[in-house]
């Protein structure tokens, strides 16, 4: 039983898919087995930048067991077209050229051709027989180098857009935009203390454990069925329709269980290729990436360069800030710099602000979304400068944040006003937490200890399309169909909202995530939207069922539907004891009133409600000999709106922190001078494991979202935003060394400490 006035919301029922997940019965993409299925493998470019002069597949085609080979010639040539795929805006020509290179390869690992064969081994052997003639070109893998006028150009037809206007300048800089309010220069003049710093962050990967996969079956009637691991089945359908130029009615996408996505499983990589191979062979074709391919051939998130300047008065009031943000888009335009620019200074009320964002192409895989895309890079810079300002002014870092924190009616740097949000409440909760109040004891073995804090913001997408379809069983239980991929326990949370609305228990709901033929259009699970938006649809569905139930009961009880009341889970007619009962009690007693009780609802919330704020506290211990950092204690405080299933909310916070710790301390794509990634395995790309982390404490601050019937606020993304800055600030407190580059890996930190010594 919850303590928040709800019966179901706020409780912690066992997730509906839990047993299948822990017993291995849940079906993932690679578990798909179809009669006559072939296996596909991708040939990838060994060059970071080269012209494709020719591809000779004849020897590979002659290998016994090889059934078909696909290249870009098998894909329709698509015009330059920007498409809204629900959660992501993409250029479809770029998407097509990314799945199979056309004319040029733009990064090491760029897909060039693919083989379908009777076994994976034969497919792999055939790849070695494909002869590709390349004309290598100079490459560039650094954002600042790529911005120079004499840098190698990736796209000869890419003209820089400057402040919204396309120029004639051919450049790797796809876009420069600016947010500005007030007069920053005047604001800096007004300040007593001004600090300006530069930052760099590395390319990092989402690190989902399940690699990309796709199984395509293109039948004789021209219908394509695709089984895949994705955050959005409808998004995959849209991309297949556009890339393959086929009718939407001819495509069905079946979402399998997903082993992590974090933003990286909205774009397609294998799906169109598997589809083409299936069409060419007449057989189902299954393709899965190995880990090396995931690193070099999918979409990591952007490396970045930032320069941040901030000024404040002696009494701790921020007067002005500027941010220069250059993000790597990878091979094609579209880095998360727009989102980063919208988040970087948003926790603060700053009267004079200017943010310049640059989207820059480099010879790396096309960058993709990663949990609060762009915001973690941004906060590493801004929250370090905030920390330095607070220290220089002699103000407690959390007090400084509270003093300048935003509240309802304050403007975001990009313009709109904040609605009711929990920025101040969150920071105050951090300041009064047991962790922040506890003293940090010094180490007894010569190691250095320090405590750091940082805050973060993420927009939250309080919108998008969601559909729910339900049918009521005679025992009052409900089969609920939804289109939202369940990444973090959304089956449970959405079921709980339907149950709360109807006065049922969570176990009375039987949720299923179904294919694109079985449910209305549902946008991808991303942008922290799913519990908000699909939960919104579940609530509306519950209301529709109540309305229909009243009509049925009116027939059964021979009274007016308007006279039937539904309150606290109980239907009743005036004070008639014979005419009352719960949804569950009555749903089996409405036979003959119009057939089965069903409802289908689709919704599209209006996007209002505001974003999520988090403040984190971390204690670290640094080995002065090696530069190795251990996390001693970590507390994540966050405005979570109403916590529907607190365990899963806590899990989102803990997962975000774990990924943020990896980004802070170890994770990076290490490139050699040939433009190749040298650490494309989990052995060398160092993600934190449970052995590297303490139990991450959480404090849930519940400021209900006024735009949602149950006050839901998205929680999944913002917890990754503060960790690198919080850890950097803690390292400084421990060692006296400020770190301005991620990751703060042992060699990098040891080197910096040695320089400072």
């Amino acid at each position: 039983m919850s303590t928040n006035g709800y019966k179901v919301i706020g409780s912690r029922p066992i997730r509906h898919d839990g047993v299948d997940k822990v017993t291995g019965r849940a079906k993932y993409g690679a578990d798909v087995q179809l009669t006559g299925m072939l296996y596909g493998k991708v040939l990838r470019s060994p060059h970071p930048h080269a012209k494709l002069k020719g591809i000779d597949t004849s020897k590979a085609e002659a290998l016994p067991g090889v059934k078909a080979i696909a290249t870009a010639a098998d894909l329709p040539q698509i015009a330059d077209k920007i498409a809204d795929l629900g959660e992501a805006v993409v250029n479809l020509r770029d998407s097509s050229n990314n799945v199979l290179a056309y004319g040029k390869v733009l990064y090491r690992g760029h897909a060039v051709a693919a083989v379908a064969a009777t076994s994976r081994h034969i497919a792999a052997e055939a790849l070695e027989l494909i002869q590709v003639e390349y004309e290598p070109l100079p490459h560039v893998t650094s954002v600042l180098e790529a911005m120079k006028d004499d840098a190698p150009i990736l796209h000869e037809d890419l003209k820089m857009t400057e402040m919204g206007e396309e120029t004639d300048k051919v450049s790797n800089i796809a876009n420069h935009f600016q947010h500005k309010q007030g007069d920053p220069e005047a604001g800096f003049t007004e300040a007593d203390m001004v600090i300006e710093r530069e930052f760099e962050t590395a390319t990092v990967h989402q690190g989902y454990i399940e690699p990309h996969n796709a199984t395509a079956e293109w039948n004789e009637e021209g219908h394509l069925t695709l089984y895949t691991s994705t955050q959005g089945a409808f998004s995959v359908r849209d991309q297949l329709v556009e890339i393959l130029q086929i009718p939407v009615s001819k495509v069905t996408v079946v979402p399998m269980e997903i082993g992590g996505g974090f933003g990286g499983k909205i774009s397609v990589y294998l799906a169109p290729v598997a589809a083409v191979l299936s069409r060419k062979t007449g057989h189902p074709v299954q393709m899965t990436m190995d880990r090396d391919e995931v690193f070099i051939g999918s979409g990591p998130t952007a490396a970045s360069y930032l320069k941040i300047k901030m000024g404040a008065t002696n009494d701790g009031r921020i007067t002005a800030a500027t941010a220069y943000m250059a993000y790597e888009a990878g091979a094609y335009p579209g880095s998360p710099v727009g989102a980063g620019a919208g988040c970087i200074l948003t926790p603060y009320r700053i009267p004079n602000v200017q943010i310049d964002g640059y989207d820059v192409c480099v010879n790396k895989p096309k960058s993709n979304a990663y949990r609060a895309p762009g915001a973690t890079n941004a906060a590493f810079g801004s929250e370090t400068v905030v920390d330095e300002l607070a220290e220089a002014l002699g103000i407690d870092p959390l007090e400084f944040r509270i003093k300048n924190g935003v509240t309802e009616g304050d403007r975001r740097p990009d313009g709109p006003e904040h609605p009711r949000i929990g920025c101040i409440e969150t920071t105050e909760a951090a300041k009064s937490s047991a962790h922040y109040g506890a003293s940090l004891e010094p180490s007894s073995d010569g190691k250095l200890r320090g405590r750091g804090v940082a805050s973060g913001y993420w927009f939250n997408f309080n919108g998008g399309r969601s559909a729910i379809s339900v049918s009521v069983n005679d025992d009052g239980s409900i089969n609920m169909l939804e289109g939202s991929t369940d990444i973090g326990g959304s089956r449970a949370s959405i079921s709980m909202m339907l149950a709360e609305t109807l006065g049922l228990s969570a176990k009375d709901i039987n949720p299923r995530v179904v294919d694109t033929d079985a449910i209305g259009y549902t946008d991808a699970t991303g942008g922290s939207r799913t519990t908000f938006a699909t939960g919104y649809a579940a609530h509306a569905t519950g209301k529709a069922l109540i309305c229909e139930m009243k009509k049925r009961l009116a027939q059964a009880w021979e009274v007016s539907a308007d006279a039937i009341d539904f309150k606290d889970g109980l239907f009743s007619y005036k004070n008639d004891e014979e005419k009352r009962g719960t949804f569950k009690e009555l749903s089996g007693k409405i036979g003959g009133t119009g057939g089965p009780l069903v409802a289908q609802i689709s919704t599209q919330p209006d996007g209002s409600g505001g974003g999520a704020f988090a403040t984190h506290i971390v204690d670290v211990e640094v080995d002065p000999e090696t530069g190795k950092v251990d996390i001693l204690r970590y507390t994540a405080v966050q405005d979570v709106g109403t916590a529907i299933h607190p365990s899963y909310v806590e899990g989102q916070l803990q997962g975000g922190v774990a990924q943020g710790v990896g980004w802070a301390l170890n994770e990076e794509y290490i490139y050699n001078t040939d433009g190749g990634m040298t650490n494309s395995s989990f052995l060398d790309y160092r993600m934190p494991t449970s052995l590297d982390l303490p139990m991450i404490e959480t404090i849930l601050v519940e400021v209900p979202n006024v735009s949602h019937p149950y006050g839901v606020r998205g929680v999944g993304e913002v917890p990754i935003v503060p960790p690198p800055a919080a850890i950097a600030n803690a390292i400084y407190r421990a060692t006296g060394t400020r770190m301005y580059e991620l990751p703060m890996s042992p060699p990098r930190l040891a080197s910096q400490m040695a320089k400072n010594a």
Partner: protein
Amino acid sequence: MRNLTDGREQIEVDATNIGELVAQLDARFPGFRARLCADNEDRIRPNIAVMIDGRTARKSMGEQVAEASEVHFLPAISGG
């Protein structure tokens, strides 16, 4: 957008929906419509988000605006 409005951060117009608003802005600041809408298309470009009083416009040009509404044109953001 400020390079179309002589640096002005806020513009006041009389309009009842986004379509009218864009037309009036374009009349006063030529090039506004081309900046917001793809060639020959009567809808906002997909890479631009329109916010009206803190909510996202879902009907593109047909979205209603009230007398005192505040409208922002922002880069469309995708999440993870």
